[in-house]
Each structure stands twice: as structure tokens, then as C-alpha cells.
């Protein structure tokens, strides 16, 4: 085993761990006063880790040279693509946090806790490991590192009962899901005698026995919980509503990317020989997520809950790409993930800007009535995000749906695609409700607070990417996604 080579491959993770540990020490001695500096350093560390991904992403790497630590990890283009998205989302979550925690929105605990950036770092590290896992052990290690950080993040406003409730719910249900996943993994281990993806794949052979099938279903169920696909989605609205908004923005983006990327890797690299066994499961989850995510969102009055259902709905479309079960579908899924991350960060930043003079946040439809008159910039940005989430051209969200449905139809799943796209119209209903409330209703005129430059920059940037200008990015984006997906489909 060549450790030098392995360490070189995991350099971004090493940077994140070192930065996380160092900043933890700073936090221990510096206390919450140093929180802002820690957040900036953490963002810099994540950014640095992201820079390290660029050469590999650009060239596209795959094959045996990407295996690290005796095949425990696999740092191929696919992992790099997912990591790049995760880091982007983490940086977003770090940038938007300080203003939130130092305002009245944070309740009685004003001021950001120094642990917040450190936890985000560790969560990102965990997700990095998840997406590069090549063994069920490293998969579980990354997953738990991410989940444990996330549980704490959800409950970081200790005196806020909603935040505490969100943390507890997330923890209890997350632990249950981890248990299910672990049980599935142990079944697979029992029936194949290995934990490595390659070993399990070879152990399964061509046919799935009943035991191995159970293993597959348990593993998929555990992962479906993490990506909050229907029918394992119940925790999402509660956690999203209760968690502090920057944390919700983080949950809606980075862990979703990691879990989806991980799911794709598991189904292709472990169960690549048994496509028929999992394809129908994924198809069901995709359709169910699209339909129930959309139906659930219709009755919501709280914007964060609505975005939670919207993320369930979006996961459905992402799973659509997975259900296609070929390289084009996986590439489409990755493109969708990128656009989804940008749209989600943008919408949550916009929600964070709905504040009064004290900085307290508004989060119901009643509060954003007539926003286009009182805060036209935020309203127009939200309009762009909502139409984009609904998949209306010429916004970039349409391109996301475009690639996914194109892959679906090209693979011959025409009826499946037709049903899914017809169901997407249900989703359009609540997205245009957003626009209706902001543009058609009489102003409520409660959103009076000013937001910091960081929010405006992030809002402007995400809105510019989602606007038709974003189509100019599509060539390089699909190119990267194709390379990443190709790495996934190399037969081991």
C-alpha cells in the first residue's frame, strides 16, 4: 500500500481535518468572540480544499490510480464532482450564518457559537468521505461523521424549543435510518463475505438471493432516509422548519448531494449487475417523491416547510436520473444536483433576507405579501428561483429537468417520463403561489430590515447563475458531469 499516493489523493480531506481540529482548539480558547474569525477561516479552508479538486475535475480521473488506502476510498472524477458541490454548499452555509446568528432571529442566544463553523467543517469532511467511499465501512464512517455533526447543527440554538425539537427528531430518526442501513450492510456482508464494494459485487454474482435482496432493500431504505425520498421523508419538513435557517440551507444542499452521490455509487458499483432489482424501487421513490413532495407543499403556509417539500419534490427528479441506470442518467443527475444546490442556496438566502429592523426573520406567506413593491430586488430574485424550481424556461431550472427527462426518454422509459413530467405540473402550483403572493397581493410591508453585503452578493450570484445567463455554463457543466458519470461506469 503506497501511503504517499493515498495521502496525496485525500489531500482535501486532510486539509479539512487539520483545519477542523485547529479551529476547534481556537474555539475552545477563543470562545464565541472568535466565532466570526473561525467562520472565515473555515470558509477559507473549505475553499482551499475545493481548489485542490480543480486539476482532477478538469482532466477527469478514474481507474485504479484513484483507489486510496487499500480500496477503502476511491477519489475519481465522480467523487470530485460531488465534493466540489458539497464544498460550495458548505461555503454558502458559512457565509450566511454570522448575520443570522447575530440578529434577533437567533432568539435569546444572540451571537454565533464558535462550534458552528467547526461542525460545518466536520460535516463536510464526513460528506467528502461518503462520496469517495469504496467500502461499506468507509461509507458508514463518513455518513456518521456527517450525521452527528448535522444533529448538533440542527439543535444549535439551545434555548429555542423548535431548534431543539428539530435536533432531537433528526437524531432519533437518523439513528433509526443508520440502523436500517447498518443492518442491510451486515446482511450483504453475511451473504457475500466482504464489505468492499468490489467484493460485495463479485460476491453477489449474477442472481440476488432472498437474503441479499433484503440487504439491498435495507441499504436503499437507509439511504433514502438520508436523501429524504418518499416514503422516508417525514422528518424533513419538521427538521427544516425547526432548524436555524442557515442550517436548513446547509441541510437542503450539501448532505443531499452527498447522500444522492453515495446512493448512485452504491447502486451502480455494488448492485450494477442487478439493475432490475433496484430500478423499480428507485422509480417508485422518484415518482412518489415528485407527487407527494408537490402535494405536501400545497397546504403549507410556512416558507421553510414549503421549501422542505420542494426539496423532496426535487429529489424525485434527481432520482429520475438515477432510475435511468446508465451513464447519461447519472450525468443528468449530477447536472441537476448542481443546479438544485444553486437554486436552494439562492432561495434560502432570500428567506434570510426577509427580516424586520431588529433582524427577526419572517417565514410565512402572510409576511411576504406584496414584497415586489416593498423589496423589489428580493422579490424578483425569489421569482427567478421559484419559476426555476418549477422548471419553467428560460431559467436554469428548466435545463436541470431537461437533461433528466432527456436521459429518461432516451433510455426508453417514455411512459415513466411522461407521468413524472405531468406530475411536475402539480409542483408548479405552489411555486407560482409564491409569485402570486409576492406580486399580486397587497403589500404587508413588514419586511423592512436591511441585509448585509454578503447576502446580497450571494443572492446576486445565485440569481445570475439561475437566470438565462446560466445557459452559457451548460456546456462546461455537462462536460464535467459526463466525465464524472463516466468514472462511475467503469466496470471494476
Amino acid at each position, binding site marked *: 500500500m503506497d501511503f504517499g499516493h493515498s495521502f496525496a489523493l485525500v489531500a482535501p480531506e486532510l486539509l479539512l481535518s487539520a483545519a477542523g481540529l485547529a479551529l476547534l482548539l481556537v474555539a475552545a480558547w477563543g470562545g464565541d468572540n472568535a466565532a466570526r474569525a473561525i467562520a472565515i477561516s473555515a470558509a477559507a479552508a473549505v475553499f482551499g480544499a475545493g481548489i485542490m479538486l480543480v486539476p482532477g475535475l478538469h482532466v477527469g480521473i478514474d481507474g485504479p490510480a484513484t483507489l486510496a488506502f487499500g480500496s477503502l476510498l476511491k477519489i475519481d472524477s465522480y467523487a470530485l464532482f460531488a465534493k466540489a458541490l458539497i464544498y460550495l454548499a458548505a461555503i454558502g452555509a458559512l457565509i450566511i450564518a454570522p448575520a443570522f446568528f447575530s440578529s434577533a432571529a437567533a432568539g435569546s442566544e444572540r451571537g454565533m457559537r464558535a462550534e458552528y463553523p467547526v461542525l460545518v467543517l466536520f460535516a463536510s469532511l464526513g460528506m467528502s468521505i461518503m462520496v469517495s467511499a469504496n467500502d461499506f465501512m468507509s461509507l458508514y464512517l463518513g455518513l456518521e461523521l456527517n450525521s452527528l455533526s448535522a444533529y448538533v447543527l440542527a439543535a444549535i440554538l439551545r434555548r429555542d424549543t423548535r431548534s431543539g425539537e428539530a435536533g432531537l427528531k433528526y437524531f432519533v430518526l437518523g439513528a433509526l435510518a443508520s440502523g436500517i442501513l447498518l443492518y442491510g450492510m451486515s446482511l450483504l456482508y453475511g451473504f457475500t463475505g466482504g464489505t468492499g464494494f468490489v467484493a460485495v459485487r463479485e460476491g453477489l454474482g449474477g442472481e440476488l438471493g432472498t437474503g441479499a435482496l433484503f440487504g439491498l432493500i435495507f441499504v436503499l431504505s437507509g439511504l433514502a432516509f438520508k436523501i429524504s425520498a418518499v416514503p422516508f421523508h417525514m422528518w424533513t419538513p419538521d427538521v427544516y422548519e425547526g432548524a436555524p435557517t442557515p442550517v436548513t440551507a446547509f441541510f437542503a444542499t450539501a448532505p443531499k448531494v452527498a447522500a444522492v452521490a453515495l446512493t448512485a455509487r452504491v447502486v451502480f458499483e455494488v448492485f450494477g449487475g442487478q439493475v432490475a432489482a433496484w430500478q423499480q424501487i428507485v422509480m417508485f421513490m422518484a415518482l412518489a417523491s415528485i407527487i407527494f413532495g408537490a402535494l405536501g407543499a400545497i397546504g403549507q403556509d410556512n416558507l421553510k416547510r414549503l421549501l422542505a417539500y420542494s426539496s423532496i419534490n426535487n429529489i424525485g427528479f434527481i432520482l429520475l436520473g438515477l432510475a435511468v441506470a446508465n451513464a447519461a442518467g447519472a450525468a443528468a443527475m449530477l447536472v441537476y444536483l448542481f443546479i438544485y444546490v444553486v437554486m436552494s442556496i439562492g432561495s434560502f438566502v432570500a428567506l434570510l433576507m426577509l427580516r424586520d429592523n431588529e433582524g427577526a426573520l419572517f417565514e410565512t406567506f402572510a409576511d411576504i405579501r406584496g414584497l*415586489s*413593491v416593498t423589496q423589489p430586488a428580493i422579490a424578483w430574485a425569489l421569482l427567478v428561483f421559484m*419559476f426555476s424550481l418549477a422548471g*419553467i*424556461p*428560460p431559467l436554469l431550472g*428548466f*435545463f436541470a429537468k*431537461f*437533461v433528466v*427527462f*432527456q436521459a*429518461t*426518454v*432516451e433510455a426508453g422509459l*417514455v411512459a415513466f*417520463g*411522461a407521468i413524472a*413530467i*405531468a406530475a*411536475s*405540473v402539480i409542483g*408548479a*402550483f405552489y411555486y*407560482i403561489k409564491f*409569485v*402570486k403572493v409576492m*406580486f*399580486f397581493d397587497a403589500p404587508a410591508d413588514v419586511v423592512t430590515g436591511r441585509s448585509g453585503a454578503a447576502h446580497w452578493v450571494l443572492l446576486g450570484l445565485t440569481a445570475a447563475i439561475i437566470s438565462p445567463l446560466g*445557459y*452559457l455554463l*451548460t*456546456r462546461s*457543466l*455537462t*462536460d464535467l458531469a459526463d466525465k464524472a458519470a463516466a468514472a462511475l461506469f467503469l466496470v471494476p
Partner: protein
Amino acid sequence: MEGFPILSLMMLVPLAGALMCLFAGARAARWIALSATLVTFGLGIALWSNYQIGGVQWQFTERAELFAGFSYALGIDGIALMLIMLSVFLMPVCILSSWEAITRRVGEYMAAFLFMEVLMIGTFAAQDLFLFYMFFEAGLIPMYLIIGVWGGDNRIYASYKFFLYTLLGSVLMLIAMFWMVAEAGTSDIPTLMQYSFPPQAQIWLWLAFFASFAVKVPMWPMHTWLPDAHVQAPTAGSVILAGVLLKLGGYGFIRFSLPMFPEASAQLAWLVFGLSMVAVVYTSLVALVQHDMKKLIAYSSVAHMAIVTVGLFAFNVQGLEGAMIVMLSHGLVSGALFLCVGVIYDRLHTREIARYGGLSINMPYYALFFMLFTMASIGLPGTSGFVGEFLSLAGIYQTSSTVALICTTGIILGAAYMLYLYRRVAFGGQTNADAAAMPDISPREWAMMAPIAAAVLWMGVYPESFLAPMRADIAALDARIAAAAPQSDAALAAGTPRAAAANALPHRQSAGHASAEEGAH
């Protein structure tokens, strides 16, 4: 002009205007919008005058590989040219009609209209299937805002209905497009127009496209969004909706359904005929009993667009030419009728027919214009309506005399409801004092009515100007679909000639009869 990207420029000018309007004050926004639309109209005239009749089929082509999955490809033939001209001609009129009526959020309103113009030009000029879809579908956003923000009392319901109906219609078309591109290996529209899809698949593809275009046209029974949207939209919104957006459906049939799926079009022509016949009779009868002027004109639009669809599916040159002329004519006439409603709505703020009466006394010029457009809507010879409807019905008569018979009743019913409307609004006594006190049309209103009136008469008297650019394209289309043309019941069949004339009497050489014959002389 070769190589000069005039189509991109025509989209860029309103786009730049729209962005400026977003940040401009009310007064500035009006002038920016007016000048942007006038410049675009000027470019449109340049486009038409540089269009070579009888030249290559696709002119002013541009192509750039900017995006993944599809390309930025523009280009027009005669059909697209005429519809682009219609759009750019109506836009300044729309801006003028909103000059005083819109006082709230003027910048955003003008921006929405200019965006709309970009999208309309793009839809007609797109040469890539997906680019077409993007422009086609993107129109939902500005129109949703126009209805929802500046509409009437029930605008929320109307805007939702408009949005969701149209979206549901078009998403299935997208799936069909993916299938077509996967099958044919290209998303280039001119290539796809020559591609022969398997007949069995054509049926499904045709139905998917039909779902989208039939909602857009709209055909009965998918028309219910239209009266709501028209009634609630501001005047200019109705003008653009009736004038151009409905034509997107007809354009879709002529650009996609017919040339790409000729066999399916022939097999399913009965469906189009059936729905169109119902539409002509039913919506005309519904129009007859309306109390709301806009609703009446909206229902009449459904009836007129049904004449378009039967003309398109007549599978002969006359039908196609007629359908195109009806589209152009209806774009002008129904737009103008909505303007006429808008003119008096601005004064009295009601669309209730009974609140008016005797307007020809206090508003003679207005009554004159209204009369002209009413007659054009009925299809009086000398106006554009006559040319289109005559050609269309002549075309369909060759295919099916039953359909022609029923659709022709639409002309009679059309005369009934339009004349009835005109009588109640313009003639009779001045029963309402406030209506009687309304001033006649202002110079601004002259400026928006007179050009349309001139165009209506021009098209009625010398339709050749409008038919000439389209002739070659329609002939090409007819050649493409001729092989699949359905059995017609009115085609002339050569029989065996009689030996003698039909009225020849039997000629006998007997004496008794001979005298009688001479007596008959």
C-alpha cells in the same frame, strides 16, 4: 443583409428595452418601451423588404453552439416572417393602449411586454426544437405576471388557470420532442420537417404536440382558460393574447404537426374537424348570449381559430393559405376589437354591454372604427376576414363538405353576435348618461386604431402582398403532406361521358310525331 444577425438584433432591442424599463420611472418606461417596439418594428420592415420571395426556404439563418443539448439556431421562412411581422406590428399598439390605462408599476409592466416580444419573435424564428420550446414556454412567465398584477378583480384565478392549463399542455410535448430527437438524432427543425417517423409512433407524437397546441389555439373543450384570461387581463394583454399567443398554436400545427407527422395528421384529422365543428357552433352560440364585451370577443376568437384548424387540416393549398390569412387577420381584428373595448373601458370602467348604447352619436369616429373591425370579424368582402375565411372554407370543402357546411354556419352566427354587439353598443338611444358623455377617441387612440384599420383593408383588398412570401413554403408543405392526404368527399372524379347531351329528347322518325315536333317548334 446576408450574414447580418437581424433576427438576434430584433430580439436584443426589446430585451435591452425591457431591462432599462425595469429600472426606469413610469414616464421614461413608456417612452423606452414605445421606442424599443418601434425600432423593432422598423427592423421588421427591413426584414420583410430583404426577404427574398422565391429565394431559399430558410433565410436570415444564424447558428451558434452556445448551449449543451441544443443550439442557438434562428432562421425564418415566409410563414414565420408573416407571424413575426404581426407580432412586431401589434407591440407598439399595445404599448400605446397602455399609455394611460396603466398607472401602477409601469416599468415592470412595460418590461413584461418587451420580454413577451422577445419571446414571440424567438418562438417564430427558432430553428432548434428545444430552443423553440424554451421560447414557447417562457411566455408563460410574463403573461402570468401581466394577468396577475395588472388584471381585473378575478385575476388570481385567471392567471393560475392560464398558467397551469398551458403548462400541462406543453410538458407532454417536451417528452415527445425528446423522443423525436433521440430517434432522428438532431434537433434541427428543417431536418426534422423532412424526417419520416414511423407511422405508429407518429400517432403518439402527434397527440403529445396536439395537447400543447390545442390548449394554445385554443380548441374546444380546452378553451375554457381563454375567456377567463381575456376578461381579467388588461387591454394590451388581451390584444397580445388574442393577436399573437393564440397564433403560436396554429404555428405549431403548421410547423410541427403537419410536416413532421403527416400520416398521423391525416389519420387524426377527424378529431380536429370534430372539435373545430363543435367549437364553431357552440362557442358562437355562447358568444351570442354574453353580457361582457371581452368575453364575447374571446368566445368569437375560439370560433375563428376553429376555422384556422379546419383550414390547416384540409390538406390542400387553399386551406393552408386560408388558415394563415385567418390567423393574420384574426390577429389584427381581434386585437383591434379588444382595443375598441379598451377605449370605452378606459372611459367608463365597465365591460357590461348594457351600460353603453348609442355611442355612434357621441363617438362617431370610434363607432366608425368599431364598425370596420366588426365587419372584418364577420368576414365582409373587402376586409381581411373575408379572404381568410373564404380560402379556408374553400379548402375544407374539397376535403369534406359536411365540415365545410357546419363551419360556414359560423360565419352566419358570427355575423349575428357581432352585429348584435355592435347594435347594442353603438346604435340605439343613449340610455346611459355617463356613456353618452364620453369623448370621442383621442389622437393617441387614433394612432393605434388607424394602422390596424389600414392593414385590415390592405389584406382584404390585396392579400397577394401577404400570400406571396408564404406561397413557396405552403406549396412545399402541401407537397410534403399530399401523400398522406385523407380521402376527400368533394374531389372531382372523371366519369364516363354521355353519348348525347343530357337534355336531348329521344328522336323518332315516325310521321305522327314529326308533326307534333314541328308544332313544338
